[in-house]
């Protein structure tokens, strides 16, 4: 029976890890602009090109 407590502990740990990830992303403003990044990736990366040459 003890093994189920260990499993529960791990499953809760995973859940808490996801919550922490969510809180971090929310607080770092990742939900503030959900359209911009999709457009930004269309832009040519200037620095990358110059280092290649």
């Amino acid at each position: 029976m003890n093994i189920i407590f260990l499993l529960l502990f791990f499953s809760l740990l995973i859940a808490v890890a996801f919550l922490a990830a969510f809180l971090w992303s929310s607080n770092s403003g990742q939900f503030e602009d959900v359209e911009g990044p999709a457009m930004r990736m269309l832009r040519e990366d200037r620095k990358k090109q110059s280092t290649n040459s």
Partner: protein
Amino acid sequence: MKNSETVDLPTCEFCEQPIEGLAVVKRANREFCCSGCATAHEMLHGDSGYGPSPELLSKYEHLIVTSEAEGLQKYSSTSVIWEVSLPAIHCTSCLILLERMPEWLHGVNDVRVSFSAKKAHISFDPTQISVPVVAAWLDFVGYPPFLITKKHTNSGEITKLGIAGFAMGNAMMSAFPEYFGLDTSGSSELLLFFRYSTAFFATLSLIVAGRFYLESAFKAIRGKTWSLDIPIAIGMIALWSWSFVLLIRGTSGGYFDSLSGLIFFLLLGKFFQRKTYAAFSFERTVNDFLPLSVFSVDQGQFTRIGNLKKGEIIELAAGSIVPVEAIANDAFQIDYSFITGESEPVRGEAGARLLVGGKLLDQGLHATVEKPAQSSTMENIWKETLPDTGWVSPRLTAIFTITVLVLSVIGALIWWQIDASRAIEIGVSVLIIACPCALSLAAPFAYGTAAGIMSKLGVFLKSGRGVAALAETKHIAWDKTGTLTSQNLIGTLKVHLAQYSTELAAIVARSTHPVAQGMYARLQIEVSNDTSIKDWKELPGKGIYATDAQGRDWFVGSGAACGRPEGPTYALCDEELVAIYESSVRYRAELASLLADLLSQGIQHHLISGDVPRELPEEWRTVFGDSIHFECPPEKKAALIAPLEHCVFIGDGLNDIEAMNKASLGLAVVEGKLGYFPQSDGIVFAVYFDQFPKVLRYAKRMAFSVKAAYLLSLLYNLTGVLFAVLGLLSPVVAAILMPLSSITVVLFVVFAAWVFAPKI
């Protein structure tokens, strides 16, 4: 070594794409892939002297005093970040151009654009470039900046919603084993573990996310008003405390899972209701229109408006907005259309009073500050909109709450007779199950979804509340100037003596009157820095009098002032007819049928305009009947609207603010370009105007759906109360009934919103 091949290909100086074949454009020793890139490069790099004009630079000079309050953050002496609103942002190119600002504007280090909020964080070196210069450049490339004076973030709400969702998921998960018959005899430790973890998650949810409802209910009680948060808070407290009692006693796991679900659904409803268009700014303050600072002659520098003292002499440039009430030291010409709605400019001599919000025309002047800021007429026009008062009316809430409390007491008293030990349980059960969760969800979801659908029809409402207001519309007050007429006022011009065209163009070019501007546009003669015209004066209601270089007397104006038939505008040179101009005010073509359609929906139309009386098309007269009001200053517009119940005001400009606040719903008609948002409850795009009756019908259907949903949720409550009074309410029943009622009500209204959605 493979890379060297690609490196050898010449790349465009601007877009950095490899230049293919022979399509090389060379300008000033730089290679471009096309002439478009070359021109863009020249413009942005100032190679050919491109850049903001001195006028544009002076327009933003007042921003020199920008501080933290306006979004300027100082990090070091060579690094500041300025957060600014750029409403003109609308596509990928905007974002790319702005984020490449460091490449085309020296002194700017980094730009980060927030696309959905239409904002930019501009990091620059204040020793190399100043805020006014950055602002002028932004305007020059097509993004006139607006100051951010109020911080608005919704990240806190998303965080709360996330936590509530997390708590609900886990609470329900750990409540399941007991519902599915976890053997209580053999593994009491496991059972207790599940019970306590359910309790933990629900309590977390209550503290982090549900606290708002308790606080809001407390405020409502203190303010002696009824809000739906009161019965919700009662339900929450009853749920938590009774569950706690059950948990301690060890009889069952309690209703903690229902509580966490309830909180999550409530927050979801709130989130939906507030889901607005981040790109639109509906909240405007006076400061968005007035300059931040003004040049004080006494101090010899730009001074914040708030720091001006009475008697101080200020310098106002031509084209600037008067920021404080002042006495002019020179003659002036001023446009008060912002505050009075009157399009005719006003002339005044030295010693006359300048009112806040007026726009100086012609020339700048010195003025003496009469009344320092904050006590001006403009502030009075701008009143705070009423606070939110909840969806369900206070009376209905009161009836609901009292009924629930009475039922709870009756239930407890009856059980006192039957089985005294269960009396408290029954009373609390009634409070738990009667929690109006579904009731409070119906309207936000219905109207929130409807508002989203309406945005596809060109109607953007500040909140779902606007849909409810639209549904109740009984009167529509139309502001004529910009709403019913199209802003394009160019009429027909018949020139009789073409040799005088140059002089005529010079005369009408000086006036800001729409008719004169229309004539100027029709003449198609460019006039710049003309000095040949003397004694130019404009008399309101009559016309322009002037003398040209040859000493001929000119008159351009109405028929009444020169003894000719009324209607068109005449241009006379020494009493000789030069040209006739018919200013055909263009009424929005689609309007006649639209007005009739609305009339058939039982809506009464009112015409309330700040303009001088004009001829109206015949079919309009029948639509408006007696309710045609011209020459209304803002206060009169508001006074005319105030007695009308359920009145929607449809206007355009700033001068309608007071009327918009008085009406139950104020809509602003916006012509094409996004970039300027008047304060209003919603925005209607002019091109979608013909869809308006459909939108109105849709709103009415949604209001009906919400009523049906109320009935549905009340039926659920009734069933629940029946269960509770009979003593049949167990945690399982609550865990099924409560989320079920919320979900069905939400699905019902969202489904209705899609079914009734008008076809475009």
